[in-house]
């Protein structure tokens, strides 16, 4: 697989920081085209700063970022931004349209998509996030979760090569979150979409092919979700919840039950309990 994002020795400091105080320290990683990578870390670890560096909203102190073969610079930033769609935690900061449909169409107008095609793509995108009934409403009057759906519809319509989600499902209810994750998964399969999701949500992290753990501005660890989830209670320090099976294991242990040390999925845990209880 070809690398669509390559980050090499990225350092970043905010203007008020002194020279030896960095928010991102020597970060290097690559993302393959079509891959879903979750970036986890506690609040203030530098995850969002990293995301803003990737599409040139912030400029690194040193290091290089290469997107789809182009090195990010003042000259290439506009071209690179066309390839990256970003959804933030609080979409209020990114709404521009007077109605939901206008807002979703905004990115397409900028790309010069013909009107007929634009209307079709907007309608399809709103349908995909279950917001068709809200097409003529004002974005500002929607609930937090509805706003996140509209912001995502904007990305579905614009069809970027890379989708960066910065805690983009945090205001959704569990079912809404599951639907949105399924929608993104479907987009990924259909269009070779690359996804980078910054998240505290264990289910969202579990959807990824690979998880990167950021702590104090440094890339501490990377692995498959199962490799990372094996850390059990340590996960809380990494800014993730404990997977449910791990929480239940801890509770069983407190009751004196011998539990397996290896990471179990919920299904694995249910199977194990069933087997154990049928020996009684």
């Amino acid at each position, binding site marked *: 697989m070809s690398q669509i994002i390559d980050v090499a020795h990225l350092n970043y400091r905010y203007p008020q920081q002194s020279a030896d105080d960095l928010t991102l320290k020597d970060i290097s990683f690559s993302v393959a085209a079509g891959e879903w990578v979750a970036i986890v870390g*506690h*609040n*203030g670890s530098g995850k969002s700063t990293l995301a803003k560096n990737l599409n040139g909203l912030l400029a690194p102190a040193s290091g290089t970022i290469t997107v789809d073969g182009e090195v990010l610079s003042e000259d290439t930033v506009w071209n690179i931004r066309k390839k990256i769609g970003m959804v933030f*935690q*609080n979409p209020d900061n990114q709404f521009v349209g007077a109605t939901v449909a206008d807002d979703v169409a905004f990115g397409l107008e900028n790309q010069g998509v013909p009107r007929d095609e634009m209307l079709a793509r907007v309608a399809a995108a709103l349908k995909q996030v279950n917001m068709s009934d809200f097409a003529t*409403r*004002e974005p500002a*009057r*929607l*609930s*937090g*979760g*509805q706003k996140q*759906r509209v912001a995502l519809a904007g990305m579905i319509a614009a069809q970027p090569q890379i989708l960066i989600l910065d*805690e983009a499902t*945090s*205001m*959704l*209810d*569990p*079912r*809404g979150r599951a639907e949105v994750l399924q929608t993104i998964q479907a987009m990924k399969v259909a269009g070779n979409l690359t996804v980078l999701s910054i998240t*505290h949500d264990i289910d969202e992290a579990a959807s990824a092919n690979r998880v990167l753990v950021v702590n104090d501005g440094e890339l501490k660890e990377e692995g498959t979700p199962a490799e990372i989830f094996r850390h059990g209670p340590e996960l*809380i*320090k990494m*800014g*993730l*919840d*404990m997977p*449910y099976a791990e*929480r*239940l294991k*801890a*509770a*069983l*242990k*407190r*009751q*004196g*039950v*011998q*539990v*397996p*040390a*290896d990471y179990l999925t*919920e*299904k694995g*845990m*249910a199977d194990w*309990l*069933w087997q*154990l*209880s*049928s*020996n*009684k």
Partner: protein
Amino acid sequence: MAIEFKQVDFTYQPGTPFETKALADINVTIPTGSYTALIGHTGSGKSTLLQHLNALLKPTSGTVLIGDREITPATSNKDLKSLRRKVGIVFQFPESQLFEETVAKDIAFGPQNFGVSEADALKTAADMLDLVGLPATLLDRSPFDLSGGQMRRVAIAGVLAMQPQVLVLDEPTAGLDPQGRLDMMEMFAQLRHDQDLTVVLVTHQMDDVANYADHVIVMDQGRVVKTGTPRDVFQDPEWLLKHQLGLPKTTAFARQLVQKGLHFDQLPLTEDELAADLVAQLPASAFGGGSTDDE
């Protein structure tokens, strides 16, 4: 202080093309001293109901009784100030409302607005900062230099500085990491206990409902469709699913076990409850010293 809704309807922007009916025939009581969770699918009317709790919105028809104050469509906007003091609302992302030069001044802003002297308000600010678990060294710092979690605590201290009797929390842990979420929820439980507060929590986190609330109001499409204890509400998973609501993690997992043939008299709500229920169903060989790899 109890809050009671009687036949409340609410419509946004009536008589315009944007007219939207958000609440329909709401009859519900939030009892004094309760920890009430308000749950419902995205867009079910939770946030609209919430804004009626201190008369930020007035009903289009019907009555809201806040303590002994009656709010009707005819209630004048004057003279609602004392209500705002008794019912403190912490909105989503409350840190976006911080504005003062220092943490102390920001927290003191509310009380001063209600006529408290600057000196007294600053003293209250110091007390409130302690109450939300932040060190006094932050008092003279700019609120904008703090971390997201700290900023949120400062904003909550600003609401507590009004010494409300009812504390309303609209998804107060959104965007915090799991440790921050847990710390924040424990803080509210402690505050409720120490300050004798009635708490209303709007949330999508069913685990928080199971762990903290004693009273649940379920909304769907602008109506109240169920009220009861968390145990009542979570015993009927099919019904919840129909209203697009989830279950606490434990309850969902216990259902999987039921499908496999394990039995529970009542679906458990927390992992400790589930573990205790399971212990009775496991053979003696399952117990031993701590963790092991399977035999």
